[in-house]
């Protein structure tokens, strides 16, 4: 724990308007190399804005970061870095995947070509071997028959398959940090479980850290080692996932856990 964390956010404040309160207020968190960290919160809690800040994906014409805010990736300050430097970080050192793969994938290009373009953009030297590498990574994210899928268009794939393609794209250049923003929220439960398992296996194999942004305590239970609970722009509680789930301290965390209708265990119909 004493080593430099892979990602360290300190006192992050993000403001979208002078008149409104900040969307994120004084958030500090750390992700160590190879670990799985969650941020849980409901709509408007600031969890996505926090995640987007890492890759500077907020619209910076309107988003303003606090004077003392700092985001360090491997010890390097990102918030004050020029955009050209951030471009080198995105995809190569840290990647992000989102809830809706259709908003990331271009509908008129074959999926294999889209993954290839990302790979070649970061590592031009790999151009000759690119096709084979892409098929390999499609295989790694659990796509059966990767050479056929390489030639398919996004609309020909199911939601789970598209999500796998997006993951393949995100990990093409072997980033050390994967940020997943509600990446499995739109999927059916069986598919969600399988995609989480794939992300977990990839993270373990490659020693990649994952920052999982979610509204779902179930995802935290299944996937995360450590979790930060956000409410109204602030971190209200953090700790080992197991501790937060079994003995939450903050009232909001307790309420969040109590709101989930349980399936397992004895909790029959309440009426």
């Amino acid at each position, binding site marked *: 724990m004493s080593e430099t964390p892979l990602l360290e956010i300190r006192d992050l404040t993000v403001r979208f308007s002078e008149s409104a309160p900040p969307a994120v207020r004084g958030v500090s968190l750390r992700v160590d190399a190879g670990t799985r960290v969650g941020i849980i919160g*409901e*709509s408007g809690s600031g969890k996505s804005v926090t995640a987007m800040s890492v890759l500077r994906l907020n619209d910076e014409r309107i988003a303003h970061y606090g004077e003392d805010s700092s985001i360090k990736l491997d010890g390097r300050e990102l918030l004050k870095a020029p955009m050209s430097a951030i471009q080198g970080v995105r995809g190569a050192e840290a990647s992000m995947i989102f809830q809706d793969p259709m908003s990331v994938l271009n509908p008129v290009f074959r999926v294999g070509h889209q993954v290839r373009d990302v790979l070649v953009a970061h590592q031009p030297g790999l151009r000759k071997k690119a096709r084979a590498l892409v098929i390999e990574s499609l295989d790694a994210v659990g796509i*059966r028959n990767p050479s056929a899928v390489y030639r398919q268009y996004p609309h020909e794939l*199911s*939601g*789970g398959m598209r999500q796998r393609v997006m993951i393949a794209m995100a990990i093409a250049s072997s980033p050390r940090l994967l940020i997943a923003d509600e990446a499995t929220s739109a999927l*059916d*439960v*069986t*598919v*969600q*479980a*399988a*995609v*989480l*398992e794939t992300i977990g296996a990839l993270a373990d194999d490659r020693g990649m850290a994952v920052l999982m942004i979610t*509204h*779902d*305590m*179930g*995802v*935290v*239970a*299944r*996937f995360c080692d450590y979790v930060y609970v956000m409410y109204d722009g602030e971190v209200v509680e953090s700790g080992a*996932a*197991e501790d937060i*789930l*079994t003995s939450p301290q903050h009232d909001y965390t307790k*309420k*969040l*856990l*109590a*709101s*989930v*209708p*349980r*399936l*397992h*265990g004895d*909790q*029959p*119909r*309440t*009426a």
Partner: protein
Amino acid sequence: MNPSPLLEITDLTVRYGTGKQKPAVDNVSLSLAAGETLGLVGESGSGKSTVARAVLGLMPFEGTIKYQGENLAQVSPTRMRAIRSDLQMIFQDPYATLDPRMTVGRQIAEPMLVHKIVARSGVSQRVGELLEQVGLAPDMAVRYPHEFSGGQRQRVAIARALGVSPSLIVCDEPTSALDVSVQAQVLELLQELQRTQGIAYLFIAHNLGVVRAMSHQVAVMYLGEIVEYGTSDEVFSNPQHPYTQALIDAVLEPDPSSRHRALTIDADLTSPITVMRRGE
């Protein structure tokens, strides 16, 4: 079993397209007693929403759907309109079912006026009562949908459905777009309305925890067919079909032990597209 259920579906089949493919709903039989909740669970493409659309008369179908003993395929259009007032619906996205340019008060009033349930003179008072019943303030009637949060909009949709005093409300994923804490409040409201007004629900959802909390009877759909059907306790405590078991195992619950639960299904087999292609 009640001899004459409120809703009785027998051998329901619904086809999209040319009819050569596997039907979206394939030979489904279900029944729902007055004042009870029948939960319909399944994943995308399982046909659960298509069952709802057939019950509401929004889809041509084969088989029989009887509502209070009347065969919906044979009733006259006039009679169907009358039945409609007894059979309401709420959907996942209340914003899509509310008109953005009309005050919510007018929208809640409209079905009552169409079905001539209240006189024009008494309608605004009745709208106020309905808003109160769903936990909103009567003076909110003058506001527009965009002025409400997601949970409040769903309450408005529920108020509109309640206005015509239905015996059955078809709820299609009514809380899946809501934050969990808001979802809990809306589910609580639906249960309270059932207790006080004896409304039956055909409750469609993909979230098994929600379905368990709401339902007396549960039917599990997979690729258009019912693979398991029984009381909520039977289905969830002692599932017989491997798909039900897989579905239950895949549910992620806020419990540290779920970290170690293994997957029991090949997730690709739950996509109708994949299954159909393989079958070709």
